[in-house]
């Protein structure tokens, strides 16, 4: 008797489980029944923009997030990812074009391509005609200074050599960024493959900057900055200000050192194997609609680096300006030479 009842309970549970799966699987169908699959950096496209797109085109948008280009690339090379639009940075956009992983962009389906700035396209040397990629945003990491604690400081990379600020500063936990900053400060290319230049950069970081840093941090430094633990941090403006209440923004001096440094250009691409190629084009076109693009810029207080008309439609001030990027240089893929960057990074990161 008892076992019978138990078996019945299990059966009922199984039926219930299958039923729930079926119901939840069906309930979210939209008018057109289409779903657009995005693969994007975390918090990089405002929720409000996605909602507007869903409403206007009667589709559902599903977003997966990645935290690094390497994660994204690994997943895409794994095959059959089924994403319609992906947002790689310049080095990986180049790799993906070379490896024939992308669908060509059909310019007739994206009239808003006319808004893309020549500034961005000049930098995108791997795809200046937007045959495979459409720029999404071009920016750079900078330095944020807590003005209530620090009043007298150099507004360039040499701030990290300032011994008075020892124990209160952090730089990003990112070899290409930190080594790139030192290279730019010394007047070299941020993607150099010259061992002598790299050795100089290594010396500068290890002997002058590192002794004054608390740590190399890409995760918690913004929190520590907002708590007053760190006074000078290298990082992305949007991440730093996100941790601070808007009334405290006046306490922060955020700047891009004029000596230049590494810069990134994220693009929208349609990978091979995408199922909704038309919808993907519509999405890219939608993003570059001036008022929509302005909404994206406003959300993160970005300057309009890749769009020619959105600047006028913006309501918020930017944390930095397009002109600040004049001396900046895109981080290109260094291929097999990356191993040399890693060797230098080991002496910076593993040895104290």
């Amino acid at each position, binding site marked *: 008797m008892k076992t019978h009842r138990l078996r019945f309970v299990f059966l009922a549970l199984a039926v219930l489980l299958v039923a729930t799966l079926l119901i939840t699987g069906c309930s979210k169908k939209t008018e057109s029944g289409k779903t657009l699959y995005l693969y994007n950096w975390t918090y990089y496209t405002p929720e409000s923009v996605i909602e507007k797109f869903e409403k206007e085109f009667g589709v559902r948008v599903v977003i997966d997030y990645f935290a*690094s280009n*390497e*994660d994204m*690339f*690994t997943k895409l*090379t794994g095959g059959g990812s089924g994403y319609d639009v992906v947002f790689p940075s310049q080095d990986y956009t180049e*790799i993906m074009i070379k*490896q024939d992983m992308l669908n060509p962009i059909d310019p007739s389906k994206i009239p808003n391509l006319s808004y893309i700035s020549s500034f961005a396209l000049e930098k995108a040397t791997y795809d200046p005609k937007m045959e495979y990629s459409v720029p999404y945003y071009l920016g750079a990491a900078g330095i944020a200074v807590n003005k209530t604690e620090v009043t007298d400081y150099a507004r360039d990379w040499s701030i990290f050599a300032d011994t008075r600020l020892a*124990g209160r500063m952090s730089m990003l*936990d*990112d*070899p290409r960024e930190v080594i790139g900053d030192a290279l730019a400060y010394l007047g070299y290319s941020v993607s150099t493959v010259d061992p002598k230049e790299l050795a100089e950069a290594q010396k500068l970081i290890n002997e002058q900057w*590192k002794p004054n*840093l*608390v*740590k*190399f*941090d890409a*995760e*918690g430094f913004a*929190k*520590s900055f907002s*708590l*007053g*633990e760190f006074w000078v941090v290298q990082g992305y403006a949007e991440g730093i200000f996100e941790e601070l209440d808007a009334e405290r923004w006046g306490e922060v001096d955020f700047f891009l050192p004029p000596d230049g440094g590494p810069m990134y250009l994220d693009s929208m691409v349609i990978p091979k194997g995408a199922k909704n190629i038309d919808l993907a084009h519509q999405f890219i076109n939608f993003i570059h609609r001036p008022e929509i693009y302005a909404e994206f810029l406003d959300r993160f207080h970005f300057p309009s680096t890749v769009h020619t008309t959105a600047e006028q439609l913006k309501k918020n001030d930017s944390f930095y300006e397009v002109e600040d990027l004049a001396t900046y240089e895109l981080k290109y893929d260094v*291929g*097999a030479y*990356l*191993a040399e960057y*890693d060797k230098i*990074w*080991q*002496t910076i*990161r*593993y*040895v*104290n």
Partner: protein
Amino acid sequence: MNVKQTTVRERRLGITYSSPMGIWLTVFFMVPLLIIIAYSFLTKGLYGGVEFPITFDAYLQMANPNFMRVLLRTVWVTTLATALTIALALPCGYAMARSKHQTLWLGMVIVPFWTNSLIRIYAWIAILSSEGFLNEMLKTLGFIKESLPLIYNQGAVTAVLIYMYIPFAILPLFTTIDKFDFGLLEAARDLGATKPQAIFKVLMPNIRSGIITSVIFTFIPIFGAYTVPLLVGGKDSYMIGNIIVDQVTKTRNWPLASAFSLIITLISTLGVLWMMTSTARERARIKQQPLKDREDTLGPSHNGLTSAGRVS
């Protein structure tokens, strides 16, 4: 004959019953492990991934003083944190086992698990930073004037690691101590043992299996720790877990990452083997005891009693 047939049938049934678990383990545990082993012997791809031919490159790269330094640091931090964790967990487990409110204490040990570990690490940042709760409290109480450097160093890493893994040590210790017959401690005292003698000669040998389990449960996860040294550590806090992540996400060197993972797996396996052999030895020891109709827990305590008696 008949008996033999049944055992054969039973044995076959055993295979049937265990096959779902066996298949599960093979597919989701053994296969990934084999992939890691295979990857560690392949050549690194230019853009991540692995390629042929088979090489020992990854293992040769490991013999690099920078990596060795991190490996040694990892072993040192792990040993220290594990030892301190057990030292703190023992009295906790003992107090819980003797308490009348066991469920309450158990709840207090388990409840923090319901919060994501990252959030708990960030909470520690808020506690330990120079303007954090702890420093502010010490300042208000007048103990210090300037903030102490409590975070972004090895001490912070060790402290937070202990916090993260102490429940894994308390729970097995509590269960073994709970089964212990505390009357034996009184008996030891009656026979002239001092309090520490009673604890170390009667209680400790009896809860050996619990201690071994706790050591394994804390040493293995701490050895592979990644988020704690990354978030509360400073310039000098890198551990093997961080190298593995770096080699996958920054340097695109999967074979090297696999080789390091294999080292962690090997050390963990050796630890588990050690635990299994010591419990087996323990069991063999219990079987040799002259008393036949005694509860399992009484076996070793009998042994403990005699040794305590010899002391007096």
